[in-house]
């Protein structure tokens, strides 16, 4: 009867609402707990950045390590946001991404080498 289906819908709405709220709260709690900022490594080898595209959370520190036997650089496309010096074999460069956005970069010595960091 009407009572049953209406009550059912109310209960479902409430249930869904609770789940929804719980989800948000959990998310907020996680943030508030202060997740240790994550780190991620990108390898430079054979004239490529591997992985060439990564998605990270804001606050992540990305470290590029040159495993190639020629020097490379890590330079944001706008050439100002971040810019490493020339990295010889085994040298590395780190940058912490605080603002969300997509950061395209390349090697200024071998400009065909490109990569992107997507910060959420």
């Amino acid at each position, binding site marked *: 009867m009407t009572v049953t289906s209406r009550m059912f819908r109310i209960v479902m709405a409430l249930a869904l609402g609770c789940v929804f709220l719980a989800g948000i709260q959990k998310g907020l709690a996680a943030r508030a707990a202060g997740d240790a900022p994550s780190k991620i490594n990108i390898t430079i080898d054979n004239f490529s950045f591997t992985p060439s595209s990564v998605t990270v959370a804001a606050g992540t520190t990305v470290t590029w390590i040159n495993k190639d036997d020629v020097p490379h650089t890590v330079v944001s496309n706008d050439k100002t946001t971040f810019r490493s010096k020339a990295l010889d074999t085994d040298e590395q460069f780190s940058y912490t991404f605080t603002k969300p956005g997509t950061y395209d970069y390349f090697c200024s010595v071998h400009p*065909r080498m490109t990569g992107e960091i997507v910060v959420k």
Partner: protein
Amino acid sequence: MAKYIKENMNEDGVDRRGFLECMAWAGTGALCVLQGGVLNSFALGDVLRGKYGHVKGELSFVQISDSHIGFNKAANPDVTATLREAIAKVNALPTPPSFVLHTGDLTQLSKAEEFDTLAESLKSLKTDQIYYVPGEHDVLNDNGEMFHERFGKGTQGDGWYSFDQKGAHFIGLVNVLNLKAGGLGSLGPEQLEWIEKDVAHLKSSTPIVVFAHIPLWSVYPQWGWGTDDSEQALSYLKRFGSVTVLNGHIHQTMQKVEGNITFHTAMSTAFPQPAPGQAEGPGPMKVPSDKLRDLLGITDVNFLQHRHTLGIIDSSLSATGQEPSGD
């Protein structure tokens, strides 16, 4: 015996098979002379002794490239030693070169001590003048300031310049600065404008030689072996009867003829690199140590016959002797 990698050439009245056969001799000291679109080969020794009067050399110079002083990995742990061997080879040429061109990547990491070692080594080169253009390894951290200070005196803009020798016009270009993401070598609008003006007053019969580090033709774009705006530069040179483009960067010899323009790349004196697409990337290629000197070398260029024909001879560090046919 020198090793060659040949690029397909355009059919333009030049006998293609003859050219390839002729060039295959080059490492043993033969000379390929282009006369009216037909190739004749002469033993270099005979030529330079004046046996063929009409092809007596009138201007000769040498191109060396990619010395990469400071490199010390497996492909060649001692690049200074192989540079010294290349210098000895130049000094042993039957005709001493009027000057030497170094088409860039003098150093591996643009370091002061690397430039020092290079300059010190080249002191034993028997020639009156050395002309340089930078490679991308020479301009790593300072936009080429140190290179410019040491080797770029009297140049224009970011380091381009021209000079005349025995009626031929030489143009040194810089295509390793201000590179853009995803791009190739770049000359830039200022340099292009300068090139147009620089050749404007020259007679079309003037032989032109252009030298720059990265190839000015599309050798293999996937590996960055090309220059984004070279077409425009070459358009200013279309009217000239003889244009030679000498490049480095790819660490192997490659040649292409397009109308009146001959493109040629030199071997490195430091380490070889793979042929296009034959490896994962264009980096230093390790070969058995007894093969290394087959793949490193110098390029000897001779202008002949009133400077309208020229012979380009690559010889590897391992090639012995320059006179295959005894006299």
